[in-house]
């Protein structure tokens, strides 16, 4: 038994020594399939962009459809053991597994998407999706006829709640009668359930759908029902050529190139990156001609104002759902509050599931 262990140790040692000369091994773990045409698809596009940019200097691999929780810890351990030098963990639920595995492998660098826990070898990154939500909220508020916006939400985490608030505030700003109906499906990826949720919202009068889930199922349902919807994470126009108004597109490639280069140069340090439309981590898809020209102009102006920093989507006065003041007139929300956001803003009906 001892012999075997020593052999194994020797093997691991040589493996790690030889990896110094080899290309940098970069691993990705995904919560959904790369073909989801949403969240995971865009992360994989980022990985492909990384390969294109750095070529022979790196070698990438990925594991897809890894459930959040204990399974992901196993996959991460396996990745670290197999000589990966840098691992991107691309879903919120990988947060604790990433921290746990990072403790055991101090020489491996980890980059965790959308989380808030860091370590010496764990950096976090996310995109200010709420900036894109502000734009689609504005468009929805101007385009809706029934004044009911349907919102398919995944899990009640700050990321999702922030998106709902941002979309609602900007729809309300241009349309005081607007109402937002929210359905929580408690899944990131379940096309059948997403389709059912879309149908339920349509039955309740919604004529525009937004989603914070990963599949384009709702887009299909919207197309069939003759209503509008927005692409999520990725351009989904081919799923609903008439329904698709525009999309919030996650653009991870530049970040992956920058951070991977930093590891190669030896300049990588832990930290937190939270970029938005300005840094092009969030991009808006092409606007459909179903959006009236003046609304398109307003939306472009909003995008420009957010990009150059003139406007922050969470600028006071804003009250919480219970009526208590959150931001005073002109006050801008700080990132800490945004990152931990666990309340609806005033005007949204219903409770956040606990």
């Amino acid at each position, binding site marked *: 038994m001892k012999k075997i262990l020593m052999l194994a140790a020797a093997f691991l040692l040589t493996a790690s020594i030889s990896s110094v000369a080899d290309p940098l091994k970069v691993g990705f773990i995904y919560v959904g399939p790369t073909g989801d045409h949403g969240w995971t698809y865009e992360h994989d596009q980022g990985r492909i962009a990384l390969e294109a940019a750095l070529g022979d200097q790196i070698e990438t691999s990925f594991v897809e459809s890894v459930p959040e929780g204990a399974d992901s810890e196993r996959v991460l351990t396996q990745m670290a053991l197999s000589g990966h030098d840098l691992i991107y963990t691309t879903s919120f639920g990988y947060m604790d597994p990433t921290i746990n595995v990072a403790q055991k492998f101090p020489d491996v660098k980890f980059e965790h998407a959308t989380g808030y826990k860091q370590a010496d070898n764990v950096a976090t990154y996310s995109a200010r999706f709420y900036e894109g939500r502000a734009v689609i909220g504005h468009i929805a508020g101007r385009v809706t006829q029934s004044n009911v916006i349907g919102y398919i939400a995944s899990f009640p985490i700050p990321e999702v709640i922030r998106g709902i608030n941002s979309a609602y505030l900007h729809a309300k700003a241009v349309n005081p009668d607007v109402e937002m109906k929210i359905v929580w499906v408690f899944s990131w990826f379940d*096309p059948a359930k997403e389709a059912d949720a879309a149908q339920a919202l349509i039955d309740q009068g919604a004529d525009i759908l937004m989603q914070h889930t990963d599949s384009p199922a709702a887009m299909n349902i919207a197309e069939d029902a003759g209503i509008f919807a927005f692409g999520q994470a990725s351009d989904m126009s081919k799923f609903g050529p008439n329904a698709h108004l525009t999309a919030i597109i996650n653009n991870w490639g530049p970040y992956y190139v920058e951070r991977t280069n930093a590891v190669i140069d030896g300049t990588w340090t832990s930290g937190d990156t939270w970029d938005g439309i300005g840094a092009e981590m969030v991009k808006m898809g092409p606007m459909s001609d179903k959006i009236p020209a003046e609304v398109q102009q307003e939306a472009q102006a909003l995008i420009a104002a957010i990009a150059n920093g003139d406007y922050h989507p969470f600028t006071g006065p804003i009250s919480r759902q219970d009526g208590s003041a959150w931001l005073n007139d002109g006050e801008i929300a700080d990132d800490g509050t945004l990152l931990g956001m666990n309340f609806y803003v005033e005007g949204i009906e219903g409770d956040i599931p606990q």
Partner: protein
Amino acid sequence: MRDVEFLGINPAVFLSTMVVAAMPVLLAAMGELIVEKSGVLNLGVEGLMIIGAVCGFIVSVETGSPVAGLLGALLAGAILAGIFGLLTQYFHASQVATGLALTLFGLGLSALLGQSYTGIRPPDFSIPNFGVLSELPVIGILLFSYDFLVYFSLALVVGIWWFLNHSRTGLALRAIGENHNAAHSLGYHVIRVRLVAILFGGACGGLGGAYLALIRVPQWTEGMTAGAGWIALALVVFGSWRPFRVVLGAFLFGGVTLLQLNLQALGIAINPAYLSMTPYIVTIAALVVISGMGSHASLRAPACLGKPFDATK
């Protein structure tokens, strides 16, 4: 009459959506029911469904005909199930392990096959025209608003019930599932009957998957069955191996999920977590009640379920 609403939900619209929502698992569960009645446990339903979904999708896109797609799905499901049958019935591989492998294989293979088919719309399914019948209030939506596959599936349920209870072959199939040695000594071809049952189960699973990809969602996305195959397996147990109870279970599962989403859209404050767990609680409760009724007859798994048969022993 038409606009009668209950809590803001139109019951007729709700029920008809529920029927459609239940179809994929219903079809798969019906197939698995026959398989289990013959004494074979195939845990690969998820794999059969996803292969049916992708093959049905590919065939219908390539031919432009939804019906051809359904046939393709039937065939693909049967072929995949045939591999399972070959391994478990002739090579005596473990049914549990082979079934699980079938699921993993199906998920992987479907992702490979479907790679260039994401983002395409399949040809539309036409809803049969019932003329004035579908104009009738309530009844029109409730009974005459579906695609033909719904009617076919419900007919299939009745057919399966009749087959299992009133046909010689059906009784033979049940006998094989209850005691394969006795059935063998009576001259029944245990392996052959089981193989046919497995192929039938595969075809039904494939059809269920195709319903999802061609009618209900309708699109191809990797992993789109998202656990429906496992629910189908649970439904067979829930329905205590009886066709009509399985249908009831399928409607219940579909209905509770839909109700949960509809109530949320209405803004009724029930924590969705409770509603999400309801189908499973109902299953457990039903199992407890059924087995609590005591008699042998109620909760009756086929006695030879999952046991390998070897005529030479």
